[in-house]
Structures are given as structure tokens and as C-alpha cells.
């Protein structure tokens, strides 16, 4: 088992003929993902790494019975591409693109929710059900199968933590990147809920950061979870009012502070890693 995606996921790549799309198609194929088609208007009929290219997502879904898509599309055109995927019946849509205007993001998320499509991102590294399917951009070598569910707001930091897990022999069920923007499709709670019901997952690592109240909301759910949660929150040393790279990572009007998040998570029973490399040890403590 795993959550959201697995070995039956049939992926199309929107923007497959661009540099990013082409490179990561190769990487995803190498990981074992079933990349069944690509979309690039005007380039239907071509192939990229042996993957057939279509003029529209509708054509790709029709021909390949795809159920997931990943966007490598520049931000001004991302909303159009996302709506296309959702209209075409895609059920899991991973939006890697960063710098999408937040009003576009709200519209994408609303339209997806009305159509029953799960949005991963925007501004995410993607999602990996280790050993089964990778959608997005993380380096392949660090993701091995195992019992740890990981859910995170940021990318490289997650590789760091997953790399540590793997180095410590702790594989992952699914690793989900929510995305670094203020408005993203999945929340911590959505993912925690799925991990709670996933038989493969024995413990969960939550990688949060300052800003917003996603971690506080998560703690309300963690309180009632049967599975242990280890959390790391980035940004302890960040000053208020400054956006730390991610649109969502900003302490405004005294809200979204490191302390508030850590206190909420601790009160809910989560173990807190003060620094990223402490995660494996804490996991060992909670799953024995």
C-alpha cells in the first residue's frame, strides 16, 4: 500500500517537450513510474523518451487512460493547463511550477475540489510512493520502500530528511510535498488522515515551517492519531515580517511563529526534532 499514487498510477506529463519536462520524464521513467503520455500543443505525434506526445490532455487521457498528471508549465500558463487536466478527468494533479499567482491557485484548488481532483502543490517537489511511483522532481536514489510516511512543505529539506531516513535504513511508504505557496491543494490534515488509514505506514514525519497555521491545524488531527508523529519545523531563527523564500513562510502580525507551532504539535503528542538530522533517532524511539 501507499497513499495517493501507487504502481497503478498512469501519468501524463504536461509540458513534456520543455527542458524540465523532458529531463524529469527520463528520471521518472527510471524510477519506474508509468509515464504513459505527454502533452505539448502542436507537437502531437512526436515521442519523448519513447513516450507518445499529444496535443491536449483530453487526447492523452483518451488514448492512454491516464489518471495522473504533472505540470512542467511556466506560471502564466499553469492555470490553463491545470484546468485542462481537471476537465480531462485527471484525478491526481502534481503542480511543480513555482510563482503561480495566488489568485490562480485559489481558482485551481476550487475547481479541483468540485471535480474530485487531488492537487499536489503548486510549488512542490512532488510525491513519491517509494518503490512504486514517483511524480515530480526529487532525486531517485534516496527513496526506498518502507514504513515511514513523510509529509512536507519544502523540497530540498525533505530530501535531506529522507536521505537521512534512507541512510538509517528507514524506507518510506509515501513522501508528499504539499508545496511552499500560501495556497496549496493538500493540507497536512488531508495527508495525515490518509497515512492514518494506510496499512504500510507505521509512523509519520511532518516537515513544517513558519508561517500560516497548517501545523496548528495538523496538531488538532494528530491528537487523535494512533500512529506516532515526528515533526521538524524550519525557520526557528527567522525574523518576523520577512518571507523566507516560500510565499507561505512568513510570520505576519505575530501569527505562524515557530514557538506556536512547536507547542501545538507537542501538546498533540508529536515528537519534535530541533534539527533535521535528529529525525531518525526520534523515529527509532517511537516505533522501537
Amino acid at each position, binding site marked *: 500500500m501507499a497513499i495517493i499514487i501507487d504502481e497503478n498510477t498512469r501519468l501524463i506529463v504536461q509540458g513534456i517537450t520543455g527542458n*524540465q519536462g523532458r529531463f524529469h520524464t527520463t528520471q521518472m521513467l527510471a524510477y519506474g513510474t508509468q509515464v504513459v503520455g505527454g502533452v505539448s500543443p502542436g507537437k502531437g505525434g512526436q515521442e519523448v523518451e519513447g513516450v507518445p506526445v499529444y496535443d491536449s490532455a483530453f487526447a492523452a487521457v483518451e488514448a492512454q487512460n491516464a489518471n495522473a498528471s504533472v505540470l512542467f508549465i511556466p*506560471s*502564466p500558463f499553469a492555470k490553463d493547463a491545470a484546468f485542462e487536466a481537471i476537465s480531462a478527468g485527471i484525478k491526481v494533479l502534481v503542480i511543480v511550477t513555482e*510563482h*503561480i*499567482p*495566488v*489568485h490562480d*491557485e*485559489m481558482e485551481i*484548488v*476550487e*475547481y479541483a475540489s*468540485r471535480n474530485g481532483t487531488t492537487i499536489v502543490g503548486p510549488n512542490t*517537489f512532488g510525491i513519491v510512493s517509494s518503490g512504486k511511483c514517483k511524480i515530480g*522532481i*526529487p*532525486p531517485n536514489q534516496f527513496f526506498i520502500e518502507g514504513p515511514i510516511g513523510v509529509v*512536507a*512543505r*519544502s*523540497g*530540498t*529539506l*525533505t*530530501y*535531506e530528511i529522507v*536521505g537521512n531516513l534512507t541512510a538509517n535504513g528507514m524506507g518510506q511508504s509515501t513522501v508528499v510535498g504539499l508545496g*511552499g505557496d*500560501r*495556497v*496549496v*491543494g493538500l*493540507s497536512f490534515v488531508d495527508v495525515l488522515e490518509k497515512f492514518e488509514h494506510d496499512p504500510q505506514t507505521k509512523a509519520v514525519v511532518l*516537515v513544517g*515551517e*513558519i508561517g*500560516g*497555521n*497548517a501545523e496548528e*491545524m495538523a496538531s488538532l488531527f494528530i491528537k487523535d492519531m494512533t500512529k506516532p508523529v515526528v515533526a*521538524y519545523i*524550519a*525557520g*526557528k*531563527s*527567522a*525574523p518576523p515580517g*520577512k*518571507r*523566507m*523564500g*516560500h*510565499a507561505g*513562510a512568513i510570520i505576519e502580525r*505575530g501569527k505562524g511563529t515557530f514557538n506556536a507551532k512547536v507547542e501545538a504539535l507537542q501538546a498533540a503528542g508529536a515528537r519534535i526534532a*530541533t*534539527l*533535521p*538530522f535528529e529525525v531518525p533517532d526520534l523515529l527509532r524511539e517511537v516505533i522501537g
Partner: protein
Amino acid sequence: MKLFEYIGKEIFSSFGITVPRGKMVTSPEEAAQVAAEIGGTVVVKSQVLAGKRGKGGGIKFASGAEEAREAAASILAITVQGHKVEKLLVEEKIQIDKELYVAITIDGSAKKPVIIASSQGGMDIEDVPDEHIVKCHVDVTVGVYPYLGREIARRMGLTGKQAANFAKLLPLLYKCFKDKDAELVEINPLVISGDILIAADSKFTVDDDALYRQKDVPYVEDRTSIEKQAHDLGLAFVELGGNIAVMANGAGMSMGSLDTLVHYGGSPANFLDAGGGTGMEGTAKALELLLQTNPRVIFINIFGGITRCDDVANALIQVKKTREIPVPVVIRLVGTNEQEGVKILNDNGIEAYKVMQEAAAKAVEIANAE
């Protein structure tokens, strides 16, 4: 991007929201002239991107041109909340019967815009008790209709013409918010003057990511010189004032690097997300930026995903060749093309760390050495 009060008010006005008569000026002479045009008592307001301007002496009333000239001169001479004053807004003084609060911003957890309104305006909304605040989410596929304004007006305790006018205002404010790709539009206070509602102040933040399609919104610079250079390079950069210059790839990783340095007793000079997939040239430019912070040590923390370790190593060597790097560089390098990268560094006499915390500890040790 935050807009000055006067720009926000110009936008409000163009959407049909009533604002006081007034004009932006940059000199005491102009202030006197505008005051004369307006007549009666005017208010001279410093245009800086900060709140609580009144407390810093950044807002003054003036009767007539002469007083306005003096007020303008005195405000132009000071700094308000740490900001140098270069622009003033000279406005008619309006009759204030009551002050309301209204704002529209983005609620990330609801993934929707949220309208926040209160009958207790004129103070920070954080200081208003919850029971006096009305919150209401907006369905972006529906927008804001007058009925929502009527309902919020009712919950604010407004009646009659004032309620009707609030119901007219709210859809205009939402249109403003949406059409201008705003992250925040705030009117505080929204002044009741007779039956009229007047936007006596404006806070207006436009989504940076949407500036490409908001060409007619005047650009307002709110970055330090280095931050601006970083922005022009497409890098996220924040000055922090310490003595360890930091570069990492990824926002979370960068924050984690800062946290680790602080944990070991260090003091970071900056936040710098070199991004994913920044090539050799971008990395070289990022390094140049770091040197401008005059650090005692440079800490580079790379977990290569899209970013290739050999690119980072080559960039470092390149910068070293073209200019003196006057401080030690501590570099941690793992991930994509790690072996190639480490070899390049070693060939040039630079050690590469594999473990983040060891590298961080080393950087702190150097920075804190006498």
C-alpha cells in the same frame, strides 16, 4: 509588493470607492499649493510602507497653505518607523462620525479569500476583540455580491443608508482585490461621514508572482540593495545582519541551515535560497552577493536534487579564480553528481563536508574565533 497609501487610494478611487480629496507631493512647496487648492484644514501624511505613522510624527494637520508647508517640511525631515520620508499625501480633513474596519486577504488554510470587517475601526485589527470581528470566506467562482455586503453590514450593526453603502462598497473592494491580484486590501479606518463611507487609509499588497500581468500598478521598491540584486537574479534573499553568509538550495533547506547555525551558536548574515536547478552562472552570482554582506565565513549547504554538485563546485572555483575570496568557505555537498563535485573541490584544495551539522559547526567555529 506593498503599495504606498496614495497609490492604494488611487486604485480604490478608480474602482468607485470614495477616498478623501488629495494629492501626493514631494516638497513643502507642492504641499502648500495642494493645501490651498483643497482649502480648509488638510492632513499631511508621510508615505512610507509602515503602520503607526501617527505615533512617529508622520501625520500632521494643517490649516491653510503655510501650515501645510511647515508640516510637510517637518515630516520630510524625519524618518518614520525607520523609513526615510520622500513622499507625502496632502488630503482634505474629513468629518469622522465613526470608524469601521474592512479588509480582504487570503486565508491559506481555507484556500479562499476572507473578508474581515469590524465596527471598531481605527485601531489594529489584532487589538479588536473577536466578538466585534466579522469574518466571511469568499467562493472565488462566485465572487462578492451586494447581499454579502448587506449581511456583513448587518452583523457589524450597521443600518439604513450606512448599511446600504457598505453593501455597495464591498463588491467594489473585492473587484479591486481580484483584478489587481492583491494579497491584501485593507481600509482602516473606513470612515462613516454622514451617510457616506470614505476610505481614510489604504493598505494594499499585490502578489509579487502576478506583477507580470499588473503592468499598470506602479512599482514600489521595498528591498535593500543586496535584496534587490538577489531579486533581479531570481534568488530569494533576506538580510539578517550576522557574520556567517549562507547559501543553500531550497527555502526549507535554507531555513534549516540557519536554524542549525544558530543552534551551534552562530549568527547568519542572510537567508539565500539559491533555488533548484540554478546553473553555474547563477551560483557564481549568488556567491558574489554573499561577499557583499562582509561575512567572516561563507557556509554553503547543498543537497543536490535538480541542482548538480559539479555545477556548484565549478561556480565556486570560477569565482575564486576571478576575484579574491577574503574569507574561508565551508561547503557541504551531497546529492546529484556528488562525486564529480567533491573531486573538483579537492583538486582545488577545498575540503567538502558530507554531513550538514558538521559543516555548520565548523562554520560557526570559524565565525566565532577571535
